C-alpha cells in the first residue's frame, strides 16, 4: 500500500513537471499573460507529492516493510530506529529521492522569495529547473525506483552496511545534497538572467543568497564527511583524495570562486560572463560528480550498486544540460553589457580575480587527478592510480603565493588602490611570522624546504586576520571566514608536520615504548549489543605527566556480517591520541596502531569558523 502511494505521487510530480514546462514556455512566448498563481499552485502540488513520496519511503523503513525492495536490501529489524530512518537515504534509490525532494523544495522557495524580480526571469528559472527535475524524475522512476515490490514478502532484510551506521554519516548526505542542489538553482537562474539580459547588480544581490547558502551546506557537508572518515574508517586521516571526496571538493572550489566573484558583480557590475560561466561550471561539476559516483565508473567506498544503464542515463542527461547551457550562453552573450569599465591592476577586483585563478588551478588539479585515469584507460588501455602525493605536490607549493595574496588582497580598496601604504605594523608582523617559523624549523629539525615559507605565511595571515578584527574596513563575516581559513592552514601544517605513528602486534599485557610514551595493552572484553557483538580493548598510554586510557572497539555486525573497527580517540585542545586495533585470528595477538595527531580539533573548529562566516553573510543580506 505504502509503496503504491510513494510510486503514484512521483508520477503526479512528473505530470506537474510536464505541465510546468509547457506553461512556462507558453508564458515566455506571449508576455501578456500572468500565470503566477497557476505556477505557484502547481509547484506546491509538485513539492507536496515528492514530500509524500519521500515520507512513504521513510515510513516503509521505520515499519521494516520488506515488501519494498529498497527496504529489503538496506534494512533489518534489529537496526536502531535512528539508522532505520537514515538508512532511507543511505542507498542509491533513496538518496536520489532525497535529491529530488530538495530540488523541488528549493525551487518552491526560490519562486516565493523572488516576487520582486522580473516575471520573465522567474518563470524562465522555473523552466530550467523543471528540466532538471524532470530528468531526475525519469531517472528515479525508470532506472532506480525506490518503490519496487517484492513478492513473496521476505521475513528479514539484508541490513545496512555497518560502516554507514554512524551519526555523522546519517546527516552527511542530506547536508551535502542541500549544497549540491543549491547549485542547480544558481545554474537555472544564471541561464534565465542571461536570457533576460539582467546579469547585473540586482541579480547578483538576489542570487548571492543562494550561492552563500549552497556554499555553507557544501562546506559543512564536506566537513561531516571528513569527520566520519576520521572516526570510522580507522586510517587516522581525514582526507584521502579518494575520487569521491574529490568530487565534492570540485564544486566547492568553483562555488568559492563564484562566492567572491558575485561580490564584484554586485559592487562594480563587471565580470558578468565569468560569473555565468562559473555558475554553469559549478552545477555541471555537481552533476558530473553524481555521475562519477553513481555510475560505478570509479570504485570507492561511496559507490552504490553499479548498474551501467544508470550511468548512461546520467551521462546523457548531463550532456543535454551542458549543451543547453553552452547554446544559451553563446546565443545570449551579446546581451551582456559591453560597456568597458576600466579595472586597475592594484584593486580589490584584481585581488578577487587572483583568488579565482587559484581556485581554478586547485580545481584543475583535482579534476585532472580524478578523471585522468578514466581517460587514459579508455584511450590506450593503461591503468594508473593517482594517490595523495600527486595532489600534495601540485597543491602545496602553490599555497605559498595563494596565502600571500590572501593576506594582501582583502585590504585593497575597490577600483584603484596603491601598494605603497604598507605600514610598519604589517611589516613587523611579517618579520615576526618568519622568525616564529624559523624557530620551529630549527627546533624540530624539519628538513622539508617548503615548510618554512608555508609556516611563515600561515602565521602572517593568522596575525593579520586577527588584527583585522580591530579594524572597521571589512565585514564581520569576511573577518571570521578568513581568520578561520588561516587557522585551518596552520592546524593542517602542524598536524601534517608533527604527527607521529606507531604500529605493532600486541597481546594483552604487552607494553611498547614509543617516543616518550609507554603504550600498555591492559585488557579486552566482549560486549553483546542488539545488532552487533563488540570487542572492547583497554589501552593505557602514559608519559611523564599523565595517563590516558583508550578503549578502541572492534564490532562484529550480524546483518550483514561485517567487522568494523571503532577508533578510540582522546581529543584535547592540543592534540588527538588516536588508537585503533584489529583482530588477528586465534593466537591472542592484535594489530595495534597508535597515532599522535596535534591540533586535530582545530581543523574541525576552523572549518566551522569558515562556515560561520558564511552564515553571518547570509543573515546580513536578509535584513
Amino acid at each position, binding site marked *: 500500500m505504502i509503496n503504491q502511494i510513494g510510486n503514484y505521487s512521483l508520477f503526479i510530480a512528473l505530470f506537474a513537471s510536464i505541465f510546468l514546462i509547457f506553461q512556462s514556455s507558453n508564458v515566455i512566448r506571449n508576455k501578456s499573460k500572468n500565470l503566477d498563481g497557476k505556477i505557484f499552485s502547481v509547484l506546491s502540488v509538485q513539492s507536496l507529492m515528492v514530500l509524500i513520496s519521500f515520507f512513504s519511503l521513510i515510513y516503509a523503513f521505520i515499519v521494516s516493510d520488506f515488501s519494498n525492495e529498497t527496504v529489503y536490501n538496506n534494512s533489518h529489524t534489529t537496526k536502531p530506529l535512528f539508522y532505520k530512518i537514515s538508512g532511507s537515504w543511505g542507498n542509491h534509490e533513496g538518496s536520489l529521492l532525497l535529491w529530488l525532494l530538495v530540488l523541488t523544495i528549493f525551487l518552491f522557495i526560490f519562486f516565493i522569495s523572488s516576487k520582486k524580480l522580473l516575471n520573465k526571469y522567474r518563470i524562465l528559472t522555473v523552466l530550467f529547473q523543471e528540466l532538471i527535475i524532470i530528468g531526475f524524475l525519469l531517472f528515479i522512476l525508470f532506472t532506480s525506483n525506490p518503490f519496487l515490490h517484492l513478492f513473496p514478502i521476505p521475513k528479514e532484510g539484508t541490513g545496512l552496511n555497518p560502516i554507514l551506521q554512524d551519526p555523522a554519516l546519517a546527516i552527511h548526505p542530506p547536508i551535502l545534497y542541500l549544497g549540491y542542489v543549491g547549485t542547480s538553482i544558481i545554474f537555472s537562474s544564471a541561464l534565465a538572467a542571461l536570457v533576460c539580459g539582467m546579469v547585473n547588480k540586482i541579480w547578483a544581490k538576489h542570487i548571492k543568497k543562494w550561492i552563500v547558502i549552497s556554499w555553507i551546506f557544501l562546506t559543512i557537508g564536506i566537513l561531516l564527511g571528513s569527520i566520519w572518515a576520521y572516526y570510522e574508517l580507522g586510517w587516522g586521516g581525514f582526507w584521502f583524495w*579518494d575520487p569521491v571526496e574529490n568530487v565534492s571538493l570540485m564544486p566547492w572550489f568553483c562555488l568559492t570562486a563564484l562566492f567572491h566573484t558575485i561580490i564584484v558583480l554586485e559592487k562594480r557590475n563587471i565580470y558578468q560572463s565569468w560569473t555565468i560561466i562559473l555558475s554553469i561550471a559549478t552545477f555541471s561539476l555537481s552533476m558530473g560528480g553524481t555521475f562519477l559516483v553513481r555510475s560505478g565508473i570509479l570504485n570507492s567506498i561511496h559507490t552504490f550498486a*553499479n548498474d551501467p544503464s544508470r550511468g548512461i542515463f546520467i551521462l546523457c542527461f548531463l550532456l543535454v544540460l551542458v549543451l543547453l547551457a*553552452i547554446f544559451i550562453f553563446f546565443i545570449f552573450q551579446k546581451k551582456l553589457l559591453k560597456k568597458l569599465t576600466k579595472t586597475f591592476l592594484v584593486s580589490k577586483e584584481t585581488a578577487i580575480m587572483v583568488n579565482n585563478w587559484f581556485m581554478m588551478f586547485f580545481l584543475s588539479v583535482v579534476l585532472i587527478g580524478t578523471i585522468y585515469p578514466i581517460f587514459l584507460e579508455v584511450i590506450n588501455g593503461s591503468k594508473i592510480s593517482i594517490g595523495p602525493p600527486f595532489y600534495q605536490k601540485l597543491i602545496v607549493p602553490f599555497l605559498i603565493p595563494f596565502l600571500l595574496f590572501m593576506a594582501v588582497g582583502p585590504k585593497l580598496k575597490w577600483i584603484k588602490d596603491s601598494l605603497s601604504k604598507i605600514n610598519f605594523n604589517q611589516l613587523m608582523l611579517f618579520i615576526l611570522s618568519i622568525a616564529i617559523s624559523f624557530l620551529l624549523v630549527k627546533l624540530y629539525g624539519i628538513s622539508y624546504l617548503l615548510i618554512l615559507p608555508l609556516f611563515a605565511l600561515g602565521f602572517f595571515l593568522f596575525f593579520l586576520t586577527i588584527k583585522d578584527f580591530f579594524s572597521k574596513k571589512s565585514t564581520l563575516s569576511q573577518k571570521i571566514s578568513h581568520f578561520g581559513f588561516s587557522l585551518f592552514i596552520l592546524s593542517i601544517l602542524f598536524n601534517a608536520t608533527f604527527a607521529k605513528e606507531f604500529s605493532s602486534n600486541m597481546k594483552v599485557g604487552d607494553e611498547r615504548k614509543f617516543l616518550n610514551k609507554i603504550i600498555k595493552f591492559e585488557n579486552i572484553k566482549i560486549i553483546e549489543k542488539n545488532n552487533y557483538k563488540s570487542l572492547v580493548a583497554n589501552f593505557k598510554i602514559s608519559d611523564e605527566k599523565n595517563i590516558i586510557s583508550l578503549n578502541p572497539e572492534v564490532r562484529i555486525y550480524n546483518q550483514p556480517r561485517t567487522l568494523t573497527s571503532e577508533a578510540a580517540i582522546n581529543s584535547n585542545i592540543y592534540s588527538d591520541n588516536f588508537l585503533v586495533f584489529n583482530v*588477528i585470528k586465534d593466537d591472542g595477538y592484535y594489530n595495534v596502531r597508535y597515532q599522535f595527531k596535534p591540533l586535530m580539533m582545530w581543523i574541525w573548529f576552523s572549518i566551522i569558523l569558515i562556515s560561520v562566516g558564511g552564515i553571518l553573510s547570509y543573515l546580513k543580506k536578509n535584513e
Partner: protein
Amino acid sequence: MNKNIKFIIIILFSLFVFFIFYKGLEKPNNYFPEKNLNKIETSLVFKNLNDQKEIILEELINNNSFSIINIWASWCLPCRDEHAYLLKLRNLNKIDIIGINYKDKKSNAIEFLSDLGNPYHEVLVDLDGTKSIELGAIGVPETYLINNKIVVKKYVGPLDDIKLKEIIEIIKYEKN
C-alpha cells in the same frame, strides 16, 4: 567568426568528454585507489617446505604481472575444499601461485599435497604464524592476488566458483 570557432570547439570538447565517459562505462571497474594498507611486505624471509632453503618473498613475486599468495594448512578443512580451485588456477598456467604453509607439521603438509595435488610453484613455511600476520592475514585460508607488490584483491576464506571467476577476469583484463 571568432565566436563561432570558440563555440564549435567547446561543443566538440563536450562531446569528446561525453564519448570518453561513455566508453569508460563499458569497462569493468577495477580501479583501486592506492592505499598503504594494500602494500604487501615483501622483505620477509621464508624457508622452503621441501629443502628448508631460505627465500626472500620478493624473489618469488613477479614484478610486472600477477601472482597469488595462498595461506593454507593441512589441518584446515576449508583449505581442502579450496584446493580444487587452486589446481584449476594452476592448470590455466597463467599465474604463479605461492603457498604459505601456516602453523603446520611438515609431514602432514607434504602428505596433503601428495594426496590432493600440488598447485603451488613454491611452498613456504610459516611455523609460528607470525609472518602471515605481517602479510596481513587473519586466518586460514586466505588468498591474495598481487600485482607490483600491491594486493589487488584479498580473499578471506576458501575460494569458490565466483571468486575463481573474478580472479580469472582480473588477470585476463590486465593482460589485454
